């Protein structure tokens, strides 16, 4: 059945990592949009892997537009309307459903923040397009809504780019130096005569929020200290300021509002309080790791799913996972660990404990929808775990702990299987090396965990 789709653009470009101060912000944007899509019966589709690998010639901003229809169709997604949105945004948990306000037209919101910038950008491309652009209809391309009737328009935009790629790169990087695809996109919209609906409420595009004082609060009444964007806006764009501050600002915002994004969130905190975490217990994950896992799987989409845990250890994660999945199978070879885990999981009816040696016997474990790999951390063993799962299961979702554990054997195995196509990175989870507090005193070399092969 056709659904409205949010085409979320969240490509992690290592070449720009320094410029953006890392890509941690993607996580907060994604969580907000995933929640909103679930609440509004829309399909969240992440664009995280660029189609063209040359990101200088094919900037992500170009790719997000020129490949949107190709990618949706390649992935077999039956779309109705499509919202293209940048990952510099977060959507308010209860924002109205803008898909219901489109009149089934192409929708965009005007860009009037820094009008000198837009004017210079428009002038810069004027000769190329040989067209007088109506500046009162100039839109921001970070949030647009369209549908199948615009497929030909996007195809012609792609053709335009491929036919003139070197010219565009030169204009973009050397001559105009004002934006990437936004101004050419505006020219193309107007030249092609696309009927653009411009009157969606401004609350759906709060850009340059510092410029317009949306981070302030009513300091005269002091009745409500919440900043204006939280109270009055729907989609917040963290742009128009130094890009390397984005992750920190979005993190702060997320920390202050995250409870609104999960109806069971108070339960998650309660759940997390019932087990120990890496800062006090040697053989478990951090609180953030467990929270990230729950935020990904503790929802309707996975309520009937099953999970296989390789490496029960003392059952901290097992207990937590048993709340998210219909059934948890957990494998451990050490008797003492199994006893400890059973004690810790007392009262949980949906856990099956399996004593097995993963590396010395034939694989005979149940097929599940999700696998949590946290057994041996030796390169060869991790590789074998992945290969066994891939061989005996039907394309499950993978969760890995200790991705960043030194000296890097777990990571080496995972990256090898990403490179050969067995695994596809969905997201990094848990603590970053500088945030991770380990009771064992271990200093990680990369992020704590990773999820692969999440279904789009």
């Amino acid at each position, binding site marked *: 059945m056709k659904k409205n789709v949010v085409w979320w653009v969240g490509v992690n470009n290592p070449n720009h990592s320094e410029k953006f101060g890392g890509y941690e912000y993607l996580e907060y944007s994604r969580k907000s949009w995933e929640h909103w899509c679930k609440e509004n019966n829309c399909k969240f589709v992440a664009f995280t892997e660029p189609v063209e690998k040359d990101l200088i010639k094919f900037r992500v901003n170009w790719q997000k537009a020129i490949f949107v229809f190709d990618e949706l169709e390649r992935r077999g997604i039956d779309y109705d309307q499509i919202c293209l949105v940048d990952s510099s945004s977060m959507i308010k948990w209860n924002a109205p459903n803008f898909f219901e306000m489109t009149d089934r037209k192409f929708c965009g919101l005007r860009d*009037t*923040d820094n*009008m000198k910038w837009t004017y210079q950008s428009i002038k810069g491309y004027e000769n190329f397009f040989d067209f007088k652009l109506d500046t*009162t209809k100039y839109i921001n391309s970070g949030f647009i809504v369209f549908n199948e009737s615009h497929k030909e328009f996007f195809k012609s935009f792609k053709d335009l780019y491929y036919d003139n790629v070197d010219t565009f790169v030169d204009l973009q990087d050397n001559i105009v130096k004002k934006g990437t695809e936004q101004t050419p996109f505006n020219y193309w919209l107007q030249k092609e005569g696309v009927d653009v609906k411009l009157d969606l409420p*401004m609350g759906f595009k709060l850009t340059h929020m510092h410029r317009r004082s949306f981070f302030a609060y009513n300091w*005269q*009444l002091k009745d409500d200290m919440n900043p204006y964007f939280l109270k009055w806006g729907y989609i917040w764009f963290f742009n128009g300021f130094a890009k390397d501050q984005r992750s920190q600002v979005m993190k702060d915002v997320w920390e202050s509002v995250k409870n609104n994004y999960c109806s069971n969130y108070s339960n998650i905190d309660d759940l997390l309080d019932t087990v120990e975490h890496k800062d006090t217990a040697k053989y478990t994950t951090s609180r953030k790791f467990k929270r990230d896992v729950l935020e990904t799987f503790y929802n309707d989409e996975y309520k009937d799913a099953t999970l296989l845990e390789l490496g029960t250890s003392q059952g901290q994660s097992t207990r937590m996972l048993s709340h998210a999945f219909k059934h948890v199978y957990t494998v451990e070879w050490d008797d003492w660990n199994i006893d400890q885990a059973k004690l810790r999981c007392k009262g949980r009816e949906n856990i099956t404990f399996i004593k097995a040696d993963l590396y010395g016997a034939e694989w005979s474990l149940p097929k599940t929808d999700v696998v949590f790999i946290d057994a041996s951390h030796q390169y060869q063993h991790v590789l074998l775990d992945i290969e066994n799962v891939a061989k005996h299961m039907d394309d499950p979702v993978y969760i890995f702990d200790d991705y960043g554990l030194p000296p890097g054997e777990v990571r080496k195995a995972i990256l090898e299987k990403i490179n050969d196509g067995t695994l596809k990175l969905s997201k990094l989870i848990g603590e970053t090396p500088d945030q991770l507090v380990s009771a064992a005193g271990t200093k990680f070399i990369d992020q704590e965990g990773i999820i692969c092969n999440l279904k789009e």
Partner: protein
Amino acid sequence: MKKNVVFIPCIDDGDGRNSPYQYSVKSWKHWCKKNDCELVVFDQLMCPTSEMKITWQRYHVLEILENSDIEYDQVLMIDADTIVHPDTPNFFKMTENKLTVVHNEGCYDWIIRSMENYHKHMFNDAPIPFKFWEYINTGFLIFNESHKQFLRDFIAFYSANKDLIINLQSTFHVGTCQPVFNYFTRRTGTDLKFLPYEYNMCDLPRKEILDEELTMTNVGYIYHYNAIPKEFKERFGNVDYWMKKTYEHLYND
């Protein structure tokens, strides 16, 4: 024959504030001539400003025209700290005969405080009836004869709530007539037509278009020299400087 009228309040308050307004009047005179409209400059107070600020007195606009035997079709009431581009399209043709306004883009700290403070202290019997992106700047308002009763009622509302209004003005400094006008239009169910920002370009420095190249003249029509920060004036020039410069750039007479 009835004409469309441009009505500019431009009163010498004795503080010299209105000296650059001559450029506004001259630019509007030019535009009116080009578009067959009549320019009316409101330059006499109806009562002391301690009784009623000029920004409130101007809502007698239709009475003033009638008492002066000026026949009008539609009337633009425009602030005198504006300059109009000579090529500005005739906005009277865009009104659909409605009360026509422009949203106040700019500092939303000021705008939202205006909304929230007046809601708390004056209009607290119902939720705020508009969103911040619907907040009107009263520097550009187009009326017609059908709005006579609305304007009478608005003035009457002032009289009935004068003490509270004056108190709120001096306490919060978030506008005089403007916050009340925003609530009053919605409470009376008045049909509004919004024109784009280009027809009342407030807060120009925030958009980085009030510059030596006068970038704003390339991207819009009516320049409103309000909300210019003190630091900006000290560094780059005051309202007098910018209005004179803009006028000379556009009209060169």
